[in-house]
C-alpha cells in the first residue's frame, strides 16, 4: 500500500468517525463544532484528491460562515436535542438497504484513479489541452468555471442570489430595534479586540489576492467572497452588529447582492451586442485571449460581489434577531 492510499484511507475513516459522533451527540453546540471539524477534514481530503480549488472553498465555508450561522441559530433556538421518542428500527432498515443497493452499484464502477475511466476521456482532455491556447490562463478550473461553462456558473450565482433573498424575506420581518442598548458585544475582551483589529486588514487583503489571483492559482470569486464576508462577520461578532452596520449599512449590502449577478449577466449582454453568443468573451479584447482575460476577471468579480454580499446580509439577518447573541452562546 502506498503512502497516498494510507493518507486517503485514514482521512476517510476519520470523516466516518466524526459523522458518527455527530449522529450520536445530543449537545448541539458540540454537533456544530464537529461539523466544522468534518468540513476541515474533508478539505484536507480534497487537497489529497488534487481538488485544491474545492478544498479552499470547503475550508472557507466550514471554518467560517456555516459554523457562525449554525451557532447563531442555536442561540436563537435551543442548545440540546431531545431524546428520540419514536422507534429507530424502520429508518435503520431503510438506510441499511439503501446503502447495500448503492454498494452493489459501485461494484462495476471504474477503479479509483483509473486514467481510462469514462469520466477522464470525455470532455476533460479538451479542457486540459485547449485552455492554454484558447483562454490563456494556467488554472484550468477557473477557465472551465468562468468561460467554458460560464452558463452553469451564472445559474449557480443566481441560486445563491435567490437563497439570499429567501433568507432576507424570512427573517426581515423579525428584525426589531434592540430594546435600549441591549446589544451585547465582545469588545470587553481585550485579546479578542486587539487580535481582531490586527486580523481584519490582512483577511481583506488576502481575499482580494484570492479574487484576482484566481486565474493563476487556486482561488476565484467564490472563495474570495467567502473570505471577504468573514472579515465583516468577525468585526460584527466582536464589535457588535450596530458598529458593523455603521461601517457597511444593510441597504448597501443588499444592493451589492443584486449588483454582482447584474455584472455577470451584463458581461453576457455585451458579447450579445458585438454579435457573438451570450457570455462569449472573445469580443471584449483586441484578440481572443485578451478578451477572455477581461471577461473572466469581470464575471469572477461579479461572483465575488454576490457571494460576499449574500453572506454578510444573511449574517446581519440572523444576528439582528430579537435575542442578541451573548458570550454564553459561544
Amino acid at each position, binding site marked *: 500500500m502506498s503512502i497516498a492510499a494510507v493518507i486517503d*484511507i485514514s482521512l*476517510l475513516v476519520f*470523516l*466516518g468517525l466524526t*459523522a*458518527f459522533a455527530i*449522529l450520536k451527540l445530543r449537545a448541539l453546540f458540540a*454537533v*456544530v463544532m464537529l*461539523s466544522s471539524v468534518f468540513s476541515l477534514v*474533508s478539505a484536507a481530503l*480534497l487537497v489529497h484528491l*488534487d*481538488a*485544491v480549488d474545492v478544498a479552499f472553498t*470547503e475550508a472557507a*465555508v466550514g471554518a467560517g460562515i*456555516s459554523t457562525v*450561522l*449554525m451557532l*447563531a*441559530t442555536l442561540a*436563537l*433556538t*435551543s442548545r440540546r*436535542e*431531545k431524546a428520540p421518542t*419514536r422507534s429507530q428500527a424502520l*429508518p435503520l432498515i431503510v*438506510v*441499511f438497504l439503501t*446503502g447495500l443497493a*448503492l454498494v452493489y452499484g*459501485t*461494484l462495476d464502477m471504474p*477503479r*479509483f*484513479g*483509473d*486514467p481510462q475511466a469514462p*469520466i*477522464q476521456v470525455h470532455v*476533460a482532455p479538451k479542457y*486540459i489541452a485547449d485552455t492554454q491556447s484558447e483562454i490563456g490562463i*494556467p488554472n*484550468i*478550473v477557473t477557465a*472551465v*468555471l468562468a468561460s467554458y461553462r460560464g452558463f452553469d*456558473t451564472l445559474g449557480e450565482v443566481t441560486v*445563491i442570489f435567490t*437563497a439570499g433573498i429567501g*433568507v432576507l424575506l424570512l427573517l426581515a420581518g*423579525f428584525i426589531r430595534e434592540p430594546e435600549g442598548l441591549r446589544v451585547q458585544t465582545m469588545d470587553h475582551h481585550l485579546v479578542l479586540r486587539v487580535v481582531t483589529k490586527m486580523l481584519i486588514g490582512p483577511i481583506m487583503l488576502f481575499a482580494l489576492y484570492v479574487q484576482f489571483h484566481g486565474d493563476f492559482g*487556486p482561488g476565484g470569486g*467564490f472563495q474570495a467572497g467567502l473570505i471577504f464576508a468573514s472579515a465583516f462577520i468577525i468585526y460584527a461578532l466582536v464589535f457588535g452588529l450596530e458598529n458593523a452596520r455603521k461601517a457597511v449599512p444593510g441597504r448597501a449590502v443588499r444592493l451589492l447582492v443584486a449588483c454582482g449577478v447584474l455584472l455577470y449577466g451584463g458581461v453576457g449582454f455585451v458579447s450579445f451586442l458585438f454579435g457573438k453568443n451570450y457570455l462569449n468573451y472573445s469580443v471584449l479584447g483586441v484578440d481572443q485571449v485578451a478578451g477572455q482575460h477581461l471577461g473572466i476577471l469581470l464575471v469572477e468579480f461579479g461572483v465575488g460581489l454576490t*457571494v460576499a454580499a449574500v453572506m454578510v446580509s444573511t449574517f446581519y*439577518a*440572523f444576528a439582528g*434577531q430579537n435575542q442578541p447573541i451573548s458570550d454564553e452562546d459561544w
Partner: protein
Amino acid sequence: MGVDDILGLFNYWMVIVLMMIGLYTVVSRGNLVKKIVGLNIFQTSVFLLYISMGKVTGGTAPILTGKPEVYSNPLPHVLILTAIVVGVATTALGLALVVRIKNAYDTIEEDEIQAADDEKEFGDAAAAEDGRR
C-alpha cells in the same frame, strides 16, 4: 475480488457510509438543527464522490505548469466548488426557516410541532390520536 478491487472501491464505499449516516440523521432525529447538520454530511459525501471519480493516479492539481504532466479531471472540481457555496446559501435558508419555526411554535423538535398542529386541528392531544387513526 482482490485487494486491488477493494482499494479501488474503498473511496466509494466510505462515501456511501457517510451518505447513509447523513440520511439516517435526517430521517431518525427530530431536532431540526440536527437534521440540517445531517443534510450537510450527506451533501459533503456527494462532493467527495464526484472528486474521487475525477482523481487520476499520479495526477496533480489541474493548474498548468508549462511542463507535460498528468492532471486530474478539472470538470468535477468546477461543479463541486460552485455546489459548496450554493450549499451554504441553502443551509442558511434552512436555518432561517428553523428560526421562524421556533418563533411560531416555540420548539424545534419535530414531534412537538406535530403535536401542536394536531392540537390546533383536533382540539386536544387525545382527539388528535383518534384523528390520526
